[in-house]
């Protein structure tokens, strides 16, 4: 298929743990960790994060909807 030849972005591959029950939600952090500009973003977001994460999470209670 023609579309499969589209430009691919850098980022390596293969570092992620395989799927399956054991790997659920356990993707490795290596990709993101190599991204140096991410540090700036983290610093930027640090400044706006809710100060008491635990209380904020506990307070975010919703009623079910559709």
């Amino acid at each position, binding site marked *: 298929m023609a579309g499969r030849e589209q430009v691919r972005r850098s980022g390596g591959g293969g570092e992620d743990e395989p799927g399956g029950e054991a*790997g659920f*939600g356990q993707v490795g952090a290596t990709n993101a960790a190599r991204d140096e500009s991410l540090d700036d973003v983290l610093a930027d977001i640090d400044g706006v994060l809710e100060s008491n994460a635990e209380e904020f999470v506990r307070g975010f209670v919703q*009623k079910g909807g559709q």
Partner: protein
Amino acid sequence: MTVRRVMGIETEYGISVPGQPWADPVLTSGMVVSRYAREHGLRATHGAWDYSDEQPLVDARGFEMPRGQADVSQLTDAEDPALANVVLTNGARLYVDHAHPEYSSPEVRSPRDAVVYDRAGELVMREAVQLLADQPPGINLYKNNTDGKGSSYGTHENYLLARDTPFARVVRDLTPLFVARQVITGAGRVGLGRDSERPGYQITSRADFFEAEVGLETTFKRPIINTRDEPHADPDRYRRLHVIIGDANLADVANLLKLGLTSLALTLIEADEVRGALTLRDPLLALRQVSHDPSCTATVELTDGRRLSAVQLLWEYRELAARHLDREGSDPDTDEVLGHLDRVLALLEDDPMSAREDLDWVAKLALLQGYRSRDGMGWEDPRLRAIDIQYSDVREAKGVFARLERAGRVRRLTTEDEVRRAVQEPPVDTRAWLRGQLVARHPDSVVAASWDSVVLRGVGGAARIGMPEPTALGRAETAAALEHDDLAEIVAALAAD
């Protein structure tokens, strides 16, 4: 072949009063709707949604004028916040659904327009939050779908389908798509299980809340395919497919692909070109297998014995579309969707993390992995859950997605200008144009409205304009009628057309 069809997105926003988790969400949702309406001089009519389902047509275009039938005072005196409801000048509906403020976009005819009008809803909610901030502690809104504590609320897509497409075929051939497309539509979620009882990260926020393959319910025993048959249009010609399984997307590419891919699959299904070739052995199991595997390598079993990954399943739909396309031709909207689809599928196949500029779940995961690696957090760390929630905060300064996008880390397909315009103006090529224009030009005369009707007063009684055809009554068709200042003349001109 085209991705174009009548469609729209409705989103129930998460709502929270800082420091007051006990605040009544029905009341606060009502405040969101009423405050926004008041600021814009719109009638936050309480209960004035026209639920009438009678559609006796006076002429072929569906106009009727049962004078003096609507009791205006009855429509406006109730102050029950649960019924707060307003039609916006862009043709959207802003109201309280269950315990959430909901923005239902106007009907549009392309995935791109659906993205623009969905984003317009984000600006509406953002402004409401800004307005309410003058009464501390204010009310915050989140474009997400779960609180991570067992509650989920929906982002629903709606697609107009030809009535003669057998629904059993829709169920058979769309179910595999809904399982597979999670790798594109997922908003990402910290926590596994309805109550986040196991630590970890999964692709979608909704997968753990689905318990049935097909059904009518939307608030419990949620089905992959919802059978609600309420076309809001001529029921002899149309069916409205009410899709309840999507996540709320903030990333433009994810949102465009959600709508484009689904519309494309529906075109294949209407032409009967899937023919059960991708049927899954256990769709509910497959739903969780896909959502719980951010590596995108898990395979799901088909009834023919094959095992395919979600990405491979999507390539199968893509191949079917390619064949259809060769025969039927394409258009710019379709080309745009397919260009992004091919690109994103290749990224997911190569390394899912490389799709972080395109997809919400990957953008969120990349960020969370950054925190994990910098600060050594485990998935059970409340800070990660806090970031998960704050990702969708509608406030420009506080919303983590908003900051990622502004930093240029997420691909944007829309412009701020077109989204701002979409807050004010309806789409030009559906009946939403007439609905929105009547609200904008004659806000005090629209006493009730629904998707397929508008009830006006001030015409020697009341007039109900039926709008059974979603693609009719757009800008070109109503331009002459809307030139009139007098409502009775507008109604007469529309009816005479």
